[in-house]
């Protein structure tokens, strides 16, 4: 199998589109959340302004190389995730660098960013960072568990580890989506989705009130901008996987936009209404509610 | 309030009652009798709530006054116990074992007035002032204006004129 070099610029084009969509979508969701709080919310371009400002600033202190690599790892996680899964099914331009076993790689990339952050923030030597890392890693791990179970269920169901093949199997009508062929797996995965979106009730990791002030304060200036870039790309990339695995993928950009928006809205829909769990409470919650669903999903198949 | 005062006077050598309002009275207690009086009020008379503990500096008389204000919720009455003692080497018995919260008041009094309460927990930890290098600031002989002038700068360009002097100067420049 020869590698098609043209795929690289096309994949980068995907990244560009997804980035801008992520920026706008982030602001849009914030505005929708603000409506629940009876506010007008931010201007839709506000995220761009913040990003440009932050990229224009430099830090004047030093913590060590690993500290600075933290946001880089994080961003790598986001972009890598996006690059190796097909964004638009059936499109040569936007199938990116997907290959037969990309599902495994995707699972790895979902975790990669958090791991990078842990290494980076740990280097700062700040006691809060240590607490934040512990919380972040334990919560992400436990939230990943039902997701992994759901992914196994899906992989078993379709007998493949290629995301493209999974999407292909879901074509031909809504009833072919995993959502309907294996609802238990989708339910487990969606609960995991809540856990990984850093919104209440599972945002204790980045909760400023509850001490581990965490990366957003430790990292500043251009590093913060890197993380903001990631915040525009990574959730979308994750939602692309969800879309592909459970909701029939997308065959065109408009379909992609609608599906991602609805997925994004789902996390905000829950997030606005609830306060957050403590770490051990959320771990317990995942173990009680989400993991059994995942196990059942596998048994179902 | 009067009846309470009469009852107390049988037990302790108290001063006259100053009845500020029907439900509020102040009475002077000798330092040595403070603790039994407080205990009696707390356990026998229902004055269980220590409202506040603070000091007054009577610089001219060279005295510190400590005021222990107690409240009885069932009768809605308050009594203030005044204890006076010399300003030099000021110290007073600690009551943190009667009311744990008194430790906080005593910490503040030590810092702000320089009154010592031997045995009170964390008495010498800084409460509000970090790195304070002057006499305790709530004493009357501490001059805030002088301190401010010595330590802070004024905004340049401020000057005022006394209307009377200004007028005299303008109308009678020769000082007539």
């Amino acid at each position, binding site marked *: 199998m020869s590698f098609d070099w043209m795929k690289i610029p096309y994949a980068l084009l995907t990244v560009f589109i997804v980035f801008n969509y992520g920026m706008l979508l982030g602001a849009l969701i914030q505005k929708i959340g603000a409506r629940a709080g009876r506010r007008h919310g931010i201007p839709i371009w506000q995220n761009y302004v913040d990003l440009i400002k932050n990229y224009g600033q430099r830090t004047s202190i030093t913590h060590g190389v690993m500290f600075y690599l933290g946001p880089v790892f994080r961003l790598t996680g986001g972009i890598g995730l996006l690059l190796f899964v097909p964004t638009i099914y059936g499109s040569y331009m936007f199938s990116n660098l997907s290959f037969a076993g990309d599902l495994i790689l995707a699972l790895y990339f979902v975790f990669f960013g958090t791991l990078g952050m842990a290494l980076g923030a740990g280097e700062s030597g700040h006691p809060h960072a240590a607490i934040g890392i512990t919380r972040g890693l334990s919560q992400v791990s436990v939230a990943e568990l039902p997701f992994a179970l759901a992914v196994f269920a899906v992989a078993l169901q379709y007998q493949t580890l290629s995301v493209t093949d999974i999407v292909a199997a879901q074509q031909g009508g809504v009833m072919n989506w995993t959502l309907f062929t294996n609802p238990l797996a989708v339910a487990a995965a969606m609960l995991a989705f809540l856990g990984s979106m850093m919104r209440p*009730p599972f945002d204790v990791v980045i909760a400023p009130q*509850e*001490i581990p002030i965490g990366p957003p304060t430790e990292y500043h200036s251009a590093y913060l901008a890197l993380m903001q870039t990631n915040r525009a790309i990574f959730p979308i990339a994750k939602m692309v996987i969800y879309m592909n695995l459970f909701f029939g993928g997308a065959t065109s950009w408009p379909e992609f936009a609608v599906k991602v928006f609805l997925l994004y809205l789902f996390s905000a829909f829950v997030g606005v209404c609830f306060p957050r*769990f403590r770490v051990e409470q959320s771990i317990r919650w995942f173990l009680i509610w989400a993991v059994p669903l995942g196990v059942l999903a596998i048994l179902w198949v | 309030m009067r009846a309470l005062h009469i009852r107390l006077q049988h037990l302790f050598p108290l001063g006259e009652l*100053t009845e*500020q309002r029907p439900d509020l009275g102040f009475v002077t207690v000798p330092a040595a009798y403070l603790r039994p009086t407080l205990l009696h009020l707390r356990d026998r008379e229902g004055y269980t*709530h220590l409202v506040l503990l603070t*000091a007054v500096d009577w610089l001219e008389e060279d005295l510190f006054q400590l005021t222990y204000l107690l409240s009885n*919720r069932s009768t809605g009455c308050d009594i203030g116990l005044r204890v006076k003692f010399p300003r030099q080497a000021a110290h007073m018995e600690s009551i943190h074992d009667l009311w744990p919260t008194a430790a906080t008041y005593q910490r503040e009094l030590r810092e702000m007035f320089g009154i010592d309460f031997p045995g009170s927990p964390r008495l010498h930890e800084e409460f509000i002032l970090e790195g304070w290098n002057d006499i305790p600031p*709530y004493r009357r002989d501490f001059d805030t204006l002088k301190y401010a002038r010595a330590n802070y700068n004024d905004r340049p360009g401020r000057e005022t004129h006394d209307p009377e002097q200004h007028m005299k100067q303008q109308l009678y420049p020769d000082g007539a």
Partner: protein
Amino acid sequence: MALYTPDRSQYPAKKADGTLDIDLASGKYLKLWQGPNHPGITGNMSVELTVCGDEVVEGKTHVGYLHRGFEKLMERRSFIQCFPIVCRICVPEPDFNEYCYAAAVEDLSGIQSPERANWMRALILEMGRINSYLMYLGGQAGALGLGVIGQWTTYARDLMLDRFEEMTGARIYHMFILPGGVRDGLPDGFDQRMEETLREIESTMKDVHDVMFHNAVFKKRTVGQGVIDPAWLDQYGVTGPNARAAGVAKDVRRDQPYLVYRELEFEPVIGHDSDIYTRSDVRRRDLLMSVDLIRQILAKMPRSGPLIADMPSMLHWKIPRGETYVRGECSRGEYGYYLVTDGSGFPRRVNVRGPSYTHAMALLERMIVNINISDVAALMVSLHTYPPEIER
């Protein structure tokens, strides 16, 4: 469900004098500062936490970040000049400072504020109480990550600030209750706008009730957390909603009625579980009671008559020697002013008894032990403390 019981074998032992034997070098413990600039802290104070794992073994309150020495400053100002600075001792509910100061001065100088002024004062104090509670509810929900409540209550509070603005001429520091009376009467059409505001607040509180108090996660975080033992009430001088949530109906408005509270109908709100949830609930119900009290006050208050007593010239006003203590029930508990005069034109000593003084120092330090670090913010907010009252 005992899935996990914390291992307390690592915990520090007590030394002879009651303090903990904490050896930071052992690596078992970590020192953390929550505050002074931190979203999870009430105002400008900080708590020095020593943690063992995720549990707090010791917490020490540090204040002084906004100490301006009000009590000392007042000793150098004439009685009328003290009036503009007292309100700064408590930002979210400044009116109690103005009232207590004015009442203490009136008590010592023998001046009676007119009947109409007393009704105006009660109205302002209840409006301020609503403001303070609204801010608290937003803070309590926000400390646990439920930001939407804060947005609603901020809106409701803003409406109340509008009413304050048209009545007193300022939104935050009203500087309206002068010694001797109040500055002005009600503006035209105030009653109707007030009624609209109260309705809006009631509807907001209904939403708050649905989203915050009937919330599985909020209950999970607050029920059974941060319990104040009723036996501590006298030991630590606990007053206000903190005491009422523990089942003791301490309320100065009822115990020692001041202003016009004798003529109003109300019953102190109490709760029994004394945890964070109960304290929030007591405050929510107290807020609704204040709404009712404002309606009663507006219905009963006289609309004409003097607003300020006949005062001597305040530029050279002297008050004979004496001392007094005046208290009121603010949203956090008993607020009082202890005023000593010496016959000159200046107060000899003013001592402000803010309820936070005991709540945020001795009580918080006692309660903070053995809770999770994540709960520190929620616990602190639930005591409803405002640091300026501590350091004055």
